[in-house]
């Protein structure tokens, strides 16, 4: 689960801070549209050919244990294999390196059976141990993996993490193709966490040879659809080459991937990158552009031109943009003030500043995730109403408003949104000072729980309500993730219960209760769920916006005439 960077747009000049990982959308989402001239085209895939892509940011990490931003994940997920993955653009989990698996009735023991004959590019075999090695790397605090928190539920993982044990007792490989994982508690979404590139098959022998630093920077050794050698990496360009002996096949029996070569140009200016696409130089605009696909700066012009608009597809993602209201400091300590702000924000007007790229939000959970509340109770629903806002402020003893600081990152597009909020709150007498700064400086304040008000976005790592509600509102997450310092004993109880329940029905109900309470308490002003818009050239096929994860490069094929 990660912060989605502000407006999720990287302004042309400030294109550098990280766009963090995760992603997603739900295929069942009503706004999911696939354009007829887009990539829904059917037909038998033709292997071969090369494509060129622009990346708006350099690759930070090649080590799957460390990579945690979209740009890195876009490449890393093509280099490495995970146990399980998502089926197409759905949120169904399907086999990958594990051809099948069983879960014990108590939900504590997972047994995976791996495919035979999987090999790393250097010929070394992929075995159950290749995954155990990676668990140990992720859970080694010295490596600095941002994903370690997902796997401490494994037996012995905490002890290993604290360096009180030299191995993880809950992991075993009875034979080279069987992997057994034992958990300390049942966790409904444990399989979801295994789809992330953190848990990829790695070749420990190779890593020992080159060292962890090089393995993260220049030396990849995976078993995935594309290969990368150190000579393929320059400051301007990264070249992925087809792994000729990759084991996965499509329904026609073709071995993946279809493309022979993917040339990635590092080009930090997303406006120019969009123009490259319009000139036909690059194959698609997707996660390679970060945040929301087609960047805000180019979106209106792009969509106004039927020639380009016809090449797009879009989905509503499992991510939410919101204004957090600090529950322990300043005027927003008072719930009445927070409710006043809920009523004073005109969400459609703010969404308009984002070129309408989103769906108005009324609660933290996006509609694509189970647990989303279809009909919120009246006292947890806020419709734009200036009079009500003013009345509430009067009741709270702020008849003339007050002054408050709004913290955010300082991307060009984010500032536009901040100013929208500023001018709206001015109408009820609240004077907003915008404190925008670079991403790191902003997080430093926000994650200390010291921002009276901030604008943040949150994006799934995997489509489970826990990834949103438990992480962002449980009082045990104060102040880093629950940085509005929200503490409600009932909400904590419900969230903790749902976290370890295996009964989805019950979980949905608990999350619904928590959502109602959180909205009654007006901790957040949820603004919108992001809309992701991708564009593909007419000669590109097989591309889809995945519900979870990055672009499906291994499934893309191109017209024979373009090869």
């Amino acid at each position: 689960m990660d912060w989605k960077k502000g407006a999720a747009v990287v302004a042309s000049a400030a294109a550098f801070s990280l766009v963090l990982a995760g992603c997603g959308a739900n295929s069942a989402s009503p706004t999911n549209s696939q354009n007829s001239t887009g990539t829904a085209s059917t037909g038998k895939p033709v292997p071969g050919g090369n494509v060129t892509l622009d990346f708006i940011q350099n690759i930070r990490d090649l080590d799957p244990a460390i990579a945690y931003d979209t740009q890195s994940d876009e490449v890393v997920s093509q280099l490495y294999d995970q146990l399980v993955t998502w089926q197409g653009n759905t949120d169904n989990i399907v086999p990958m390196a594990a051809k099948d698996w069983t879960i014990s009735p108590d939900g504590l023991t997972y047994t995976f059976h791996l495919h035979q004959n999987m090999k790393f590019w250097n010929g070394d075999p992929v075995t159950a141990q290749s995954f155990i090695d990676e668990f140990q790397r992720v859970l080694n605090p010295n490596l600095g993996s941002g994903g370690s928190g997902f796997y401490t539920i494994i037996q012995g993982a905490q002890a290993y993490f604290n360096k009180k044990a030299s191995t993880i007792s809950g992991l075993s490989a009875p034979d080279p193709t069987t992997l057994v994982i034992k958990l300390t508690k049942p966790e409904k979404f444990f399989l979801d966490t295994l789809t992330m590139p953190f848990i990829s098959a790695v070749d420990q022998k190779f890593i020992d040879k080159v060292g962890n630093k090089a393995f993260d920077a220049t030396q990849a050794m995976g078993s995935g659809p594309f290969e990368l050698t150190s000579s393929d990496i320059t400051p301007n360009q990264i070249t992925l080459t087809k792994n000729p002996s990759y084991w996965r096949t499509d329904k026609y029996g073709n071995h993946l991937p279809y493309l022979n070569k993917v040339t990635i140009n590092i080009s930090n200016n997303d406006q120019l990158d969009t123009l490259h696409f319009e000139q036909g130089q690059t194959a698609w605009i997707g996660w390679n552009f970060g945040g929301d696909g087609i960047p805000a700066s180019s979106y209106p012009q792009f969509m106004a031109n039927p020639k380009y608009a016809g090449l797009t597809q879009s989905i509503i993602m499992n991510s939410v943009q919101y204004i957090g209201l600090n529950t322990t400091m300043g005027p927003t300590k008072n719930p009445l003030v927070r409710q006043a702000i809920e009523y004073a924000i005109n969400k459609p007007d703010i969404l308009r500043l984002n070129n309408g790229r989103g769906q108005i939000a009324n609660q933290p959970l996006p509609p694509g995730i189970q647990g989303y509340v279809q009909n919120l109770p009246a006292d947890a629903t806020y419709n734009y109403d200036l009079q009500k806002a003013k009345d509430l402020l009067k009741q709270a003893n702020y008849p003339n408003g007050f002054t408050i600081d709004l913290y955010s990152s300082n991307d060009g597009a984010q500032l536009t949104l901040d100013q929208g909020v500023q001018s709206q709150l001015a109408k009820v007498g609240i004077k907003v000072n915008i404190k925008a700064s670079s991403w790191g400086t902003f997080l430093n304040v926000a994650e200390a729980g010291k921002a009276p008000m901030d604008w943040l976005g949150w994006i799934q790592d995997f489509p489970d309500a826990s990834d949103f509600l438990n992480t962002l509102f449980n009082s045990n997450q104060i102040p880093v993730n629950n940085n509005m310092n929200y503490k409600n004993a009932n909400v904590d109880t419900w969230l903790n219960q749902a976290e370890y329940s295996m009964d989805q029905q019950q979980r949905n109900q608990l999350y619904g209760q928590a959502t109602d309470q959180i909205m009654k308490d007006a901790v957040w002003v949820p603004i919108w769920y992001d809309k992701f818009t991708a564009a593909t050239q007419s000669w590109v096929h097989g591309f889809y916006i995945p519900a979870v994860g990055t672009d499906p490069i291994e499934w893309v094929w191109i017209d024979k005439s373009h090869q």
Partner: protein
Amino acid sequence: MSLSELDIKPSQPFAPTPMVAKKQQLKSLREFPMLYLGGFIVLVLIVVAIFAPVLAPHNPDAVFQNGLNANGTPIAPNWEFPLGTDSNGRDILSRVIFGSRVSLTVGVVSTLINLFIGVVVGLVSGYFGKWVDTVLMRAVDTILAFPFLLFAMALVAVLGPSLWNVLFAIGILGWGTMARVVRGQVLSLKEFDYVQAERALGASHGRIMFRIILPNVIGPVIVLATLNVGMNMLTEAGLSFLGIGIQPPQASWGNMIQQGMNTYAFAPWTLWFPGLALVIAVLGFNMMGDGLRDLLDPHNATR
């Protein structure tokens, strides 16, 4: 590109000029159209800045319901919004008018800071010479060798982006050239007879530096300062472009350009007008500076 002492060099050293001679020069202002035009632009700029609330048709920070098209794009220039609207739906003309205040403040105040530090360092360094000079000139070398924009970025990142911090960052980093120019002038002035005479008569160091020498280095300093104002306005815009300039909603031409770059392709007026305002203002100061230099240039007197 930064200012250099070579912007001044051709005319140095300035000999101390009796006041009478300056009056005569004033008459010949017509010979210096650059000075006239530049001065006129600067004057207009100052008037606009002072009377911004009277001149602006709208509140510069007001977001207009009818300020955006249905698809969220800015509105092209029309009767209500003579220069169109920006991507927030605000009136660009009003923002350009109010932006003059910020740009002018940044340009002038940061130059005053440059001026103050530069003149003091230059005077002391040139006057006392020896180790004082060595130490201060190393400091000047240091400040001049810094990658200016990167350093300003880091400084603003530490202090937080606000008008005064941007001003401060530009002010505190941009005085090196000024110090060198003043020092050069002082070195040559020190040798003039009447300075030596004052010294012999027992005048204090402070008196000689500030009462005798300073008035005579003022010419090149004014030229450099005028050019510096325009340069600092550009620097502010550059910082805004890199995302660390004046924070909205306060309109500065720099942050308006930065915002306009995102909408340039389909709403070019969002980039053109603030850019044009900035160019004209900077041009005004540059022309004025060039004109002043020509005016004060001893070669002009002899030709």
